[in-house]
């Protein structure tokens, strides 16, 4: 009798362990598959050109050189200029930081109004904003170019900031609105009775509550804006191009020998800030995404 009861539990335990190991194996395979390109990029960027030409793609560098990184940062040629990525990196910073901050702030304000100050037509306006999220970039290119011309900010960094803020508001509003609808309306009522006005309630009560969703929005917006190529290439000129456009130019405008190591280093440099944002704030990202679903 005991035998009969005992056996299945042991075999089920064995099955569980096997399943667990199978799971790890599967995950490892996928992780390896996913990280392989990054590995190739990193090793290639640390090899010199001869080694790249001679060796295998997957081999570790025999001699580590930082020269390609130096070239990518301050010496590579984009068209006729040969200052590397550096000036464009700062263009992107000057573009992304204000654009992220402004669009996040406006999104927070919009979300606060739509979720907590229910007014006639609030749902319609929210739906229209949502609709704005689904308009493809390409559709707005021409009207936007015309608009920037009229506003006299065509080809400037403020112009690009404007474009990204406008395009980002739909998403940021969505994030904040969905976060703020979970906050009981009684909180706003209590603050009203305490005498706080529209902005006071926003600053003193809602913004301090918003850290998780601010992190989500900042990561989302920063990634979008930093990685954007289409708006960058369409609405910038020689001195104001963001890093993505410069990267493209470096890779495409080499003369003579193709410097793979420099290209790889440049690509990693261009991707580093978004990577950094994820590493620093990634924990909050997951937390913020699931915040609305489970009440704390």
């Amino acid at each position, binding site marked *: 009798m005991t035998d009969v009861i005992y056996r299945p539990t042991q075999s089920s335990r064995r099955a569980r362990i096997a399943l667990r190991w199978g799971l790890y194996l599967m995950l490892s395979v996928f992780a390896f598959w996913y990280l392989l390109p990054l590995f190739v990029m990193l090793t290639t960027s640390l090899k010199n050109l001869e080694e790249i030409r001679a060796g295998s793609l997957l081999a570790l560098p025999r001699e580590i050189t930082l020269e390609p990184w130096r070239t990518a940062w301050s010496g590579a040629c984009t068209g006729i200029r040969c200052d590397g990525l550096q000036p464009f990196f700062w263009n992107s910073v000057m573009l992304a930081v204000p654009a992220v901050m402004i669009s996040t702030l406006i999104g927070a304000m919009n979300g606060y109004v739509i979720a907590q100050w229910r007014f006639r037509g609030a749902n319609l306006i929210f739906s229209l904003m949502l609709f704005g999220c689904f308009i493809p970039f390409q559709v707005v290119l021409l009207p936007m170019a015309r608009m920037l011309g009229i506003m006299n900010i065509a080809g400037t960094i403020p112009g690009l900031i404007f474009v990204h803020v406008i395009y980002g508001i739909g998403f940021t509003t969505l994030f904040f609105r969905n976060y703020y609808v979970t906050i*009981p309306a*009684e*909180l706003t*009522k*209590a*603050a*009203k*009775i*305490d*005498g*706080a006005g529209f902005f*006071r309630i926003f600053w*003193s*009560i809602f913004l*301090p*509550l918003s850290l998780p969703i601010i992190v989500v929005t900042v990561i989302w917006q920063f990634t979008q804006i930093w990685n954007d190529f289409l708006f960058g290439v369409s609405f910038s000129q020689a001195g104001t191009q963001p890093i993505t456009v410069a990267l493209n130019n470096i890779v495409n405008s080499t003369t003579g020998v193709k410097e793979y190591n420099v290209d790889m280093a440049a690509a990693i440099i261009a991707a580093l800030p978004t990577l950094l944002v994820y590493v620093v704030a990634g924990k909050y990202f997951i937390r913020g995404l699931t915040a609305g679903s489970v009440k704390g």
Partner: protein
Amino acid sequence: MSPILEIQGLFKNYGSTEILKDINVSINKGEFLVLVGPSGCGKSTLLNCIAGLEPISGGSIRIGGQDMTHVSPKDRNIAMVFQSYALYPTMSVAKNITFGMQVRGVDKATQASKLAEVARQLQIEPLLNRRPGQLSGGQRQRVAMGRALVRDPALFLFDEPLSNLDAKLRVEMRTEIKRLHQDLGASMVYVTHDQIEAMTLATKIVVMKGGVIQQIGTPHEIYTRPANTFVADFMGSPAMNLIPARATPATEGSFIEIGCDTGQPIRLHDPRMAGLSGDILLGLRPEDIVEAGQRHGPLVQNGSVMVEVVEPAGADTFVVARLGGKEVTSRLSADTGAKPGKALEFGFDLSKASYFSPQDGARMS
């Protein structure tokens, strides 16, 4: 002296839906008004209208003798305690209590002294540096009350403040609110769906249903002389028995005959009620149906009925019988000899009886 709160002809519509219809209520300083009714009766909406959190569609609201119909909530000289407490989650308890004063620009020294006073009054001194998330339900409730008390308003508003607490704590806090009311002599409007809370706290009760006031009165009036069958049924636990009966005029007063499924009909005589005839509903509280011989008086009249269920509840025993085709509950003493399936001689205390029309449920006297 003018009433502290005076609501005249108040209407509230959402679109074409009427939420509140012709509300007229007034209370004097120091009164404790309880708005009670089933969910969806408009009691919370009425409270929000008094607070100015909901605009009204018609009528007027005066607080402290001033017309406040179109005044914003912060200028109405009120304080409100919410069901969910609505404490500011990112602020400490102290900040929660002083936030209103801070917004109104009260100087720091006054803020500190008022905070200290309220904290002592509610015994929340050790909690002042905590966040609301670190408090228990009862503690949050105290902090929410502290936020209202510190304002020292003309009128306190409570929106079901106890319904998120467990049963034991609810009774404790109920007593505490009553004590606060007595100590402060403050005027309060309190919303609840719990009729026991209403009975224990109120000096005046407003019973509402479907956006219409059914009855306004002291707890005693509401309990002993309900205006209609809704109030009779809603207030009191177990509810008032509404027994279908037939009345015929007598030389003095009226005869009341109650059909009985398992025996002789019961014939009662109420000399006070002249000219009753036809179908009526006889309203009797469970405690006004006693064992024969337990209560004396000319209006205590006996009848024998078969007992269906006996429910001992400690201090009392509830005995259910069937009269006029309906279950009738009586509250008997714990040592009653009633047994299911056996007939029992009941005494009906008609001095406490109410009579209602079966058509519209209205009180007939």
